[in-house]
């Protein structure tokens, strides 16, 4: 498996403001997760921690192309999605710490970041578990005549699950506004794409459901943004689902314990040459959109936002043990309002 070729000519470079946003967001994810890895080693973060380092262009390009009312359904590898969605980095970091000021009051940890107000419906630790939820969210929008769409992230590994099949059929059959967004990083844990899929071109799988689809270079934030914008426009106008495969790569271990026996260092290095942040900064510099100083400034901001997030998490308290059984059920009078 070798790095994805750009499937089309790269879209034009964005304007300065957009470039700043995208680069800033990619850098934030990178620095945030590098820090999280450190904090894991330090024992501040426990359990499972899945980093999206290497895949930032997908989070930034995709989430950035959605409207605020659009729903997001994500996976356990969701820090990037959450940060771009606008969850405060502090709330996300505090969640990783398990603190009460975390986005899920610390109850969920890294795999279960939620923000109901921002229509960020998690964080799901069951591979492909989110796809049926996305169908339902889109159904609710459709039945209530709301214009929102639902973006549903999942990995290449999820494609093998029955839930992928059932959900794509349901969404297509019922003409629901779902963007199925596959983050194909060529591995499901240690199992390479070609060892888990008979058809490795995931975008072709739309055929089985009459779902329009495309594949895009997931290392190029401009390409992802473009493809998602087009897909979303198509979904909004036609009201039917779309399958978008973003070809990307995970630079780090699957989770924190992973000897990476299943891939060569050389393959990883090859992909790192297409680091989405480097690719984008090089281009911005080359085309004169952002100067070196500005780029450095963005990186400093990412670092300091990360530091602030850590400070916020450190300052947070622990959910009292007496509240252990709180919120297993909805307390009377605490039911959510009808949207």
């Amino acid at each position: 498996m070798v790095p994805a070729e750009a499937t089309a000519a790269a879209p034009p470079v964005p304007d300065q403001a957009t470039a700043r946003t995208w680069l800033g967001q990619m850098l934030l994810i990178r620095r945030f997760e590098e820090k999280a890895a450190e904090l894991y080693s330090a024992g501040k973060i426990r359990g499972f921690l899945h980093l999206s380092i290497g895949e930032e262009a997908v989070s930034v390009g995709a989430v950035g192309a959605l409207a605020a009312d659009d729903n997001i359904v994500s996976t356990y590898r969701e820090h990037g999605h959450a940060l771009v969605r606008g969850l405060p980095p502090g709330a996300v970091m505090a969640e990783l710490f398990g603190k009460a000021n975390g986005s899920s009051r610390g109850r969920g940890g890294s795999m279960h970041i939620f923000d109901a107000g921002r229509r960020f419906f998690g964080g799901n630790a069951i591979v492909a578990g989110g796809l049926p939820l996305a169908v339902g969210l889109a159904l609710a929008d459709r039945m209530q005549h709301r214009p929102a769409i639902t973006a549903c992230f999942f990995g290449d590994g999820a494609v093998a699950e029955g839930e992928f099949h059932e959900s794509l059929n349901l969404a297509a059959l019922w003409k629901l506004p779902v963007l199925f967004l596959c983050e194909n990083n060529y591995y499901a844990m240690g199992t390479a794409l070609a060892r888990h899929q008979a058809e490795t071109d995931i975008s072709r799988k739309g055929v089985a459901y009459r779902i329009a689809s495309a594949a895009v270079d997931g290392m190029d934030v401009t390409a992802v943004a473009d493809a998602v914008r087009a897909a979303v426009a198509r979904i909004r106008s036609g009201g039917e689902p779309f399958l978008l495969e973003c070809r990307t790569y995970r630079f780090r271990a699957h989770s924190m314990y992973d000897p990476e026996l299943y891939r060569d260092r050389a393959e990883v290095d090859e992909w790192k040459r297409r680091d989405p942040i480097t690719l984008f900064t090089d281009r911005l510099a080359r085309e004169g959109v952002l100067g070196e100083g500005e780029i450095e400034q963005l990186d400093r901001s990412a670092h300091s936002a990360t530091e602030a997030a850590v400070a916020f998490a450190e300052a947070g308290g622990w959910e009292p043990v007496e509240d252990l059984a709180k919120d297993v059920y909805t307390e009377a009078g605490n039911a959510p309002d009808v949207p």
Partner: protein
Amino acid sequence: MRLTYREAVRTGLTQALASDPRVFLMGEDVGRYGGAYAASKGLLEQFGPDRVRDTPLSESGFVGAGIGAALGGLRPIVEVMTVNFSLLALDQIVNGAATLRHMSGGQLSVPLVIRMATGAGRQVAAQHSHSLEGWYAHVPGIKVVAPATPHDARWMLPAALREPDPVVIFEHAILYPEEGEVGDEPGPLPLFSACIRRAGRDLTLIAHGGSVGKTLAAAERLAGDGIEAEVIDLRSLRPLDGETILSSVRRTHRAVLVDEGWRSGSLAAEVSARIMEGAFYELDAPVARVCSVEVPIPYPKHLEDAALPDAERICAAARDLVGATAGARR
């Protein structure tokens, strides 16, 4: 008003759909076919295909879609044709519906009602005769009820729809043709409480769903022998109404539990353990269980009958208990 259980379910569904635009029904063959048990017959014509939505055979997919629709502001009633097929949807229920509120720190609620037929007794063999209510009753984050009468079949549904959290309703398939009185009002009994269907002083028989009828029949027979059995219909399987169970057992000092689930790991095991914990010192005899024999339920009637609890086995257990310990109060 006298209605069959089937009509009672249909009445509940009709009223729910008519009174709240957020409510919709979906599942396999709920629409054009009219429901595998004809419980939703006519609803498609009345409410249209969006609100009475036929689904493909995709149990995990459409149950998960029900969860998503609940998150999106609707009040879905998802019908899984039978508990047997719900095994395919268990991940969505256990890892999704049941966890989302707690795991999100209380941000989300999942106001979802899942209905399914359960139980054996119709000669449909091993893969279509499960009674897995006990499994569902094990899962924190969901609630579980089992209407045993047309009245409850009518009125538990609207009460379940008022819950902000997932409620699973088990309808025993043998009950659909049974007729009974259905009140115009839900009545005073809360959704999650047990009730005494027959008062008695000599022992307590505890059952739910499709076993309540057999248990009442057994109680009648026992009365012929001068044994007055109290019969409790659990109604709610999660939460269990420990109060009603324990106060009855404290009075009668003996209990027989009737449960169509396989004996080992049955819901009856939990009820037995609760009595152990809450009324041990009041017991005159060990709590007995009448459950299904631990076999895949066979097709032919004589074997199926032999596998399931019946009035005779209930009576025998009751007589054993009362006989062995008559006047044994310590």
